[in-house]
């Protein structure tokens, strides 16, 4: 259980820098193109790749922080017991969604890897062969994280971060 949470935090912490990394990638392209008239073939694809990996692999961290957007006003006024049932229900809907996404994505991910699918663009990066299987990986990570949240709700130990109120990034890794 612990290692899944650690893994999600680690991945979130790593991909956070991917967005930051896009900045010099774009700046380099703009500089090379505008000043030196020699645009890169890779900046475009690399930026998309960095961000896409970032979107997908941050899913586990966001779920762990219970930062997903929800209407919590009713939960806040019902008795704690009912609130726990409602939160459990929310996690179960999430588990259904992620199970569905895994079922939906694993085949195309596998195919993209086996045929070595690429973008077909100027750089011809293997973006699809990375991103398509990562959809499944991301969904698995979120699903496992949701199972942990369910277990925690059932054993009554509560969430680490208050629901929907994580202020991530404040002081140390989340």
């Amino acid at each position, binding site marked *: 259980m612990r290692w899944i949470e650690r893994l999600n935090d680690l991945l979130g912490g790593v991909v956070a820098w991917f967005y930051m990394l896009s900045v010099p990638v774009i700046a380099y392209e703009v500089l090379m*193109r505008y000043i030196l*008239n*020699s*645009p890169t*073939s890779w*900046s*475009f*694809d690399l930026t998309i790749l960095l961000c896409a990996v970032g979107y997908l692999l941050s899913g586990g961290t966001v779920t762990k922080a219970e930062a997903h957007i929800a209407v919590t006003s009713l939960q806040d006024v019902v008795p704690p017991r009912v609130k726990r049932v409602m939160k459990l229900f929310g996690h179960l809907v999430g588990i259904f969604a992620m199970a569905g996404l895994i079922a939906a994505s694993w085949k*195309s991910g596998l*195919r993209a890897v086996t*045929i070595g*699918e*690429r*973008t*077909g*663009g*100027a*750089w*011809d990066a293997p973006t*699809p062969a990375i991103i398509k299987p990562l959809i499944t990986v991301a969904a698995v990570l979120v699903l496992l994280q949701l199972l942990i949240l369910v277990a925690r709700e059932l054993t009554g130990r509560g969430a680490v971060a208050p629901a929907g109120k994580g202020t991530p990034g404040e002081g140390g890794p989340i």
Partner: protein
Amino acid sequence: ETWRVQTSMTAGESFYTDIEKYWLPRLAEMTDGKLTIELTPVGSVVPYNETMDAIGQGILQGDITATTYFTGRNKAFSILGDLIAGYDRPEQISMFCYHGGGRELLQEAYDKFTDGTVQVIGCSPIAREAFVAKVPIRSVEDFKGKKVRAPEGLASEVFKRAGASVVVLPAAETFSGIDKGVVDAADFSTYTMNDSLGFNKIAQHPVYPGIHSMPLIHFTVNKAAYDALSDSHKTILDVWYRAMIDDLRMRNDINDRQLVARDLAAGIDVVDWPQAERDKFRAIAVEAWRDYAQGDPLAEKAYAAQVKFMKGIGLLQE
């Protein structure tokens, strides 16, 4: 039976509206209403470059799209689908597709990447594109140092060898890119389409007829759905698609020519490359095709078939 067929066209472009208006009703008439098609525009069900799998899985029954969009799966799709600077006229590409082994090769490629779940009905280019240019580009020499937007596929390799700086820009950014001068020229679409989007107003040196792109548009359908058809319906689909593309091409060609005539009269610098420059560009391109295909058996096979056919009809020297 109604098939859901996605296209790579947008809902407002004349190809799409012409299919809806003239050709979908005809298919229904030809089949006594037993086989009809419901057309959906680009990206409406799955992304434009994901239709191949969606048809195999039966999510879509068919797709009318540019072959070159599947380049990421294999370079053969680019060699077959848009041999940059290759042919002079669209009809020559139809010849290659139907009588030069093009369709069979496309089927072979599809079989490889969809495990035989997709049937290729036909393939034919729909138009000769016009080249968007903000600065005059009248010869291969003029490409030197120009920033050119290229889509996926062979195009970037060919432009690069002609001396241009190739910039990767998505379709949604191409207009602003040309307008603000991020790029000097762009491989975009037909003269008619470029005109309706306003490209010829902001880039007043369009090259027409184009020197670069004549994308093959193919029609593929789900194999199981196809196999369930009667022989007569199979024949109808084949003939219907040939007739439709020829008709769409004619309509577009007339439109293109009328617009070019209008623009020439209005003093817009519509550039027509002399044949000698076109030949020079093709000579550069041939080497790009060969190197591009190298290392992939399917792409090499497609390249060999293209070159053999072009030599046969005198477009390339022995």
